[in-house]
């Protein structure tokens, strides 16, 4: 995910992650609407299923990639000053890494709880 020399990959990943996330979100809403009463045990059971757990993990990875490419695009378009550009990109990068670590911690705690 370097900022230079990743035009095609970034563009491609942005599209692939969008399709994956759209499918995940549709499934998520479908499951939610088709469960009569969503209780914590059902929720926990659902998210502890290996397939759902992996799919959620993939979703989070794709979300971070998608957010990085999108935010990078906005920064490259609207922040002309090189120094401000670099600082903003670094802050966004740190925020995304921190968010992904937190998401991994939550997912792992779900896997080991059951």
């Amino acid at each position: 995910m370097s900022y230079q020399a990743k035009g095609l990959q970034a563009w491609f990943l942005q599209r692939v992650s969008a399709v994956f996330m759209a499918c995940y979100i549709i499934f998520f809403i479908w499951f939610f609407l088709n469960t009569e009463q969503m209780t914590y045990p059902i929720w926990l059971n659902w998210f502890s299923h290996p397939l759902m757990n992996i799919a959620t993990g993939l979703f989070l990875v794709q979300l971070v990639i998608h957010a990085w490419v999108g935010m990078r695009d906005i920064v490259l378009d609207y922040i002309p000053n090189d120094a401000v550009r670099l600082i903003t990109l670094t802050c966004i990068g740190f925020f995304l890494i921190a968010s992904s670590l937190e998401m991994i911690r939550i997912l792992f705690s779900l896997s080991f709880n059951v």
Partner: protein
Amino acid sequence: MRFTLYRFNPETDSEPYMKDYELLNIEPGTMLRDALLRIKNEQDESLSFRHSCGEGVCGSDGMNINGKNGLACVTSVDSLKEPVTIRPLPGMPVIRDLIIDMTQFFTQYHVVKPWLIVKDPIPDVELKQTPEQRDKLDGLYECILCGCCSMSCPSFWWNPDKFLGPAALLQSWRFLADSRDQATEERLEALEGPYKLFRCHSIMNCVDVCPKQLNPTKAIGNIKKLMLKNMV
């Protein structure tokens, strides 16, 4: 008919300003270029703008007409709302009145190497194409480099030195699509990175304003598709 024109003479004016003119007895079907020439000849000979062929072939008189880029010589005044507001093409430095400095635009045009690159020994006869191969260049070779598209593109306004812009990218695809060209790899490699090609977000302002009805967005999409094909 009322006109509001952008005026700026760097030798006498500290800031650009808008000046009003009124033209009487305009014949129906008069083109904007002819109206501007009448203002210049009858009212204010200091008014400066580029123009040459007068029929949409040379691409000299690109300007911002009532907020939309276009060629004055192929824009009928009948179609314009009054007062007709004319400004120079946005995004580039103004030299004087409606004349802009297009150096950056042509620098980006040169970057895509807008000529055939053939590595095999040049044959004694011409490089032949089938009619189908030739058809692929339709909608690409017609570009007259007026700059209306690139100067309507926000990505080109923000990063004119890094993003090549729709006009140059249309020409890039014109040579990538040419069956006689043998530099596909190098051309694609030169377009890598987040800026040169990928600042395009397909908002299609370029398609909206092109006076020759060309489609740079589609050409840019084709370049991305070809890159993807070459990647796998």
